[in-house]
């Protein structure tokens, strides 16, 4: 709840957040109003996170009802205060608001496409249920996931053909984000059904891409390799340094085979001048390097440039793995080790072989945090782990070996996914990655499991009868609505919400400013797209009234006519009568039938024209037309009472026409009746006296009576 403190010239707004009322936020602002300032001020929400504060000058007589309208510019000021940053999507790491908006813009098309496919497929599935439905649907979800993923930054850079520096271990790539890492994790588990068979290998790749993200809170293999890379330049004989062997073990443990092989080839024994006396040693190093590069992997295809031999089918892989392990054991037991003169090399290589053979304690020593250990287990000990349950058990085991005091948000997300706990996954997405993430990730979750589908689509009484899915879409739509550049994409999300969406969309549309022509037209365009004719008409009325009030009368009439607002047009017609109206009528065009409430003005214009001709000469034809126009005007119910007398008074010449009576008996009677009605109305207190000579009424009555007499005689 906001409160205001003020001293001379400087004002601050104090915000007391409900969750922490003890730590108020103080926002000073300038309003340029000289004291004394009225203690009353008006605070209202403007668009998004902006507060609109109206500050008034203290009037000399503060109790006086009349406000000083003479000096409006100094009477008060409206100040808009931005609270917080509008672009804060909650992701924490993408603090550039423009970057967030780019993601928001980019996700509109994939989201809308998926929704429309979902709708058409659910219509189809009602007619026939088949398994091809599922396959097709998963293809769509995967396509959606890949498109969203591509918005979150690029995957590792394509292999470069340039000659690489042999001492560069980790290629410099675009800094990965947790948002992308989280999305890819969900894609692996929920969207990509084809990769289910080699899920462990997908996780190996995932960690290779995103291990650096964990470096912030704890040491990682990535950070250790990065440190070692810097020192590598200064090292002469790398094989003498224990950190060299550690780096190889680290890289190998999480399956970064190319880095391990690259490091091994930096071994001093490869140098030409040493090759002669270190032949056996070099042979052992090379044998290990070859074994590493021939490591069998169960996956569809190797990531570009990566080492290892890929096998698609399980039997082929088992066969290759057995053979590979046999080769390692053979090497481990070979007699060459005895001839190896370099102690560190022998120790290091032996330890590398232990990793390759899947020695649990060596793996544990060669990894930094539990996730790396987990990945190492997949590669070397349990490559056939399948099913979330066993993956979860393994994760728990690794967590016990390498516990973390404050788990990283990606770790929490992964545990939630492995534990098949939809609520935890949702909570983590929402807490760590904000409304954008959750609104879009729900699609992956619901595609991934039937349980999640039920949880997310179930209508809940505690949410006012909407589902969790709808709730998160609404929250995201609110987030979009709060910014002047993204409010236009909120309708896409709102219209996908069955229960509350349309109601909130109407509110959103009504809240847009009508004075900015472009915004107004964009607003009306949204109404047209979603067939909100009533809203559209109301917005046009608002625009019409706004323009009318602000002096742009032509635009005001235009919008009221577009809105078919007969009522207001009638009022305007009466208001316009007497001044300015001729110019406006000229602009309206000649077709009086469609002019709505301005019909009266059209008729009046015709009448005035013929009357003018009558005054210019004495042509009976023109007079006859003028008389007809008069009758038509007087018959028309939209002609206001207060104009009757001026109209009749203007027509005196017609009633006293010399050549012949222009009005017949019933016409004259009609006018007399109107005159009688008028005399009665004049007695009422709210009657507005026309600016006419006092004898006007009697002279009209007399002229009409004369005309009646002549008409009867003529007849």
């Amino acid at each position, binding site marked *: 709840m906001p409160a205001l403190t003020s001293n001379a010239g400087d004002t601050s707004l104090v915000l007391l957040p409900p969750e922490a009322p003890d730590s108020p936020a103080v926002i000073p602002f300038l309003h340029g109003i000289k004291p004394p300032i009225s203690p009353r001020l008006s605070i209202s929400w403007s668009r998004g996170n902006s507060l609109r504060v109206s500050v008034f000058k203290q009037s000399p007589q503060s109790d006086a009802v009349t406000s000083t309208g003479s000096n409006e510019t100094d009477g008060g000021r409206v100040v808009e205060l931005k609270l917080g940053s509008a672009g804060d999507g909650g992701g924490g790491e993408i603090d550039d608001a423009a970057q967030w908006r780019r993601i928001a813009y980019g996700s509109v098309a994939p989201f809308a496409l998926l929704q429309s496919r979902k709708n058409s497929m659910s219509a189809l599935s009602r007619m026939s249920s088949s398994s091809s439905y599922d396959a097709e649907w998963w293809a769509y979800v995967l396509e959606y996931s890949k498109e969203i993923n591509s918005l979150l930054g690029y995957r590792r850079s394509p292999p470069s053909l340039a000659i690489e520096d042999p001492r560069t271990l980790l290629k410099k790539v675009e800094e990965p984000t947790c948002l992308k890492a989280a999305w890819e994790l969900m894609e692996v588990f929920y969207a990509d059904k084809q990769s289910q068979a080699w899920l462990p290998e997908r996780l190996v790749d995932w960690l290779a891409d995103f291990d650096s993200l964990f470096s912030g809170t704890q040491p990682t293999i990535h950070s250790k390799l990065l440190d070692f890379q810097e020192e590598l330049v200064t090292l002469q004989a790398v094989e003498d340094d224990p950190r060299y062997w550690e780096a190889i073990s680290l890289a190998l443990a999480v399956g970064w085979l190319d880095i391990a092989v690259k490091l091994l080839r930096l071994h001093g024994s490869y140098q030409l001048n040493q090759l002669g006396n270190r032949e056996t040693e070099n042979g052992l190093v090379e044998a290990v390097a070859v074994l590493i590069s021939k490591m069998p992997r169960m996956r569809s295809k190797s990531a570009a440039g990566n080492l290892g031999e890929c096998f698609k089918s399980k039997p082929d892989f088992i066969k290759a793995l057995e053979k590979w392990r046999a080769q390692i054991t053979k090497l481990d037991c070979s007699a060459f080790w005895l001839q190896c003169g370099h102690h560190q090399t022998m120790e290091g290589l032996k330890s590398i072989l232990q990793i390759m053979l899947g020695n649990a304690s060596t793996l544990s020593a060669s990894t930094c945090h539990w996730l790396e250990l987990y990945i190492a287990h997949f590669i070397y000990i349990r490559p056939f782990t399948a099913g979330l349950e066993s993956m979860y058990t393994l994760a728990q085991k690794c967590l016990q070996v390498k516990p973390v005091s404050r788990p990283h948000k990606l770790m929490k997300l992964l545990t939630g996914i492995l534990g098949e706990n939809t609520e935890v996954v949702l909570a983590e997405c929402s807490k760590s990655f904000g409304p954008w993430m959750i609104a879009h990730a729900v699609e992956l979750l619901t595609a991934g499991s039937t349980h999640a589908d039920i949880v997310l689509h179930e209508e809940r009484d505690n949410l006012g009868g909407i589902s969790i899915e709808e709730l998160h879409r609404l929250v995201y739509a609110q987030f979009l609505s709060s910014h002047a550049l993204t409010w236009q994409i909120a309708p896409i999300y709102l219209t996908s919400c069955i229960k509350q969406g349309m109601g909130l969309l109407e509110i959103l549309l009504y809240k847009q400013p009508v004075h900015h022509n472009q915004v107004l037209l*964009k607003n009306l365009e949204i109404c047209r797209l979603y067939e909100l004719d009533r809203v559209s008409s109301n917005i046009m009325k608002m625009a019409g009234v706004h323009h009318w009030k602000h002096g742009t009368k032509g635009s005001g009439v235009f919008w009221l006519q577009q809105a078919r607002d007969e009522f207001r047009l009638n009022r305007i017609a009466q208001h316009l009568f007497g001044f300015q109206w001729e110019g406006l009528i000229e602009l309206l065009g000649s077709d009086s039938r469609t002019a709505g409430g301005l019909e009266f003005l059209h008729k009046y214009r015709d009448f005035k024209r013929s009357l003018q001709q009558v005054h210019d000469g004495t042509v009976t034809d023109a007079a006859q037309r003028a008389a007809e126009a008069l009758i038509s005007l007087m018959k028309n119910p939209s002609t206001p009472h207060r104009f009757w007398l001026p109209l009749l008074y203007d027509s005196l010449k017609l009633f006293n026409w010399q050549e012949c009576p222009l009005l017949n008996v019933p016409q004259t009677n009609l006018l007399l009746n109107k005159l009688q009605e008028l005399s009665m109305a004049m007695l009422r207190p709210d009657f507005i006296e026309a600016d006419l000579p006092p004898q006007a009424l009697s002279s009209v009555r007399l002229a009409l009576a004369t005309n009646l007499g002549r008409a009867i005689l003529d007849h």
Partner: protein
Amino acid sequence: MARNGTPHPQPLQIHRLPQSKYIDALRWLPPISPFDRHVVLAAFNSDSDASAVEIHSINSKNPSETLTHHFSWTSPHRISSLKVSQTPQKPVIAASSFSGSLHVLFADSLDAMIDSEVSLPENALHAGPISGIDLNENGSECVTVGMDGRVNVVNVGGSGVSYRKVFDSNGLASYTATKWASPAEFATGGPGFGVQWWDQRKCGGPAAQFKGNWAQKTSGIVHSIDIHPSRKHTCLAGGSSGSVFAWDLRWQQQPIILSGVGMGETPAQSLSESEVWEVQYDTFTRAANLASISSARVLPAMICSEDGILAVVEQGEEAIELLAEPCAINSFDIDKQNPSDVICCLEWESIAVLSRA
């Protein structure tokens, strides 16, 4: 889609360049040399509420065409309309604001920097926003129109800046777009698909006007007007409901409808059903073809629309869609010197550069 009898679809290169700000309008700057090209952007930064006229150099040799920020002039208000004179020696950039101010910037042709600037403050020319402006050929006169119903001609030649009120409807009429036809004549457009023809030698109101029908449900507003130098009697106008029509002064009663549902009758085609924000004659028609188009026919025109269409429309031909974006295209400009190149700004804070071969 056929284009002047050629059956091949046009090869088209499109480069999308994301910006981190909203682009209200953009224009090509007359080129200094064939390799050194610049564009002028009216940029609005929503985070800081700051507006600017920015000059960027554009690299058209590089396939990953990029904009390099070159010069920036901070505008006190958000820009509503942006025009550039086609004078290679001394390009003049005029920008009007939603607050009603007009800023005229004089660029140096050698380094594409802004040398000097003259401004008219808010409320000098118009009460409220200026909705449309146009610079004449040599950049010495600028016509401004507004919703307030005023029409002004601002003289920016010489040392100072002076202006003359051509007409004031006192709010009874509103104007949203304008375009010079000759040194003395210009056209304006407004609500109700109205187009007015003004002759500065005749005072007291428009010399001729076309009144669309206001009262129809499908009526709308003219957002943009163009007049071809070789066809000064024809105003090309684009506006609401996808409407694109040509109003020929010689046949004032009946406009020629190129596209749209807004004019009541059944049109030949409808490219778009939403607002057409800008129209320009498409000068990318070979000279031979231009001569063969009879003077009664409307020259090909390019349009951009709220529903994300950038297309070329031609009387009696099927339209050629150059872009179909998921968001609005707010403005575009055809390079006068090199009409195969088009630049347009998209609502989702990005720019697209197109080159046709």
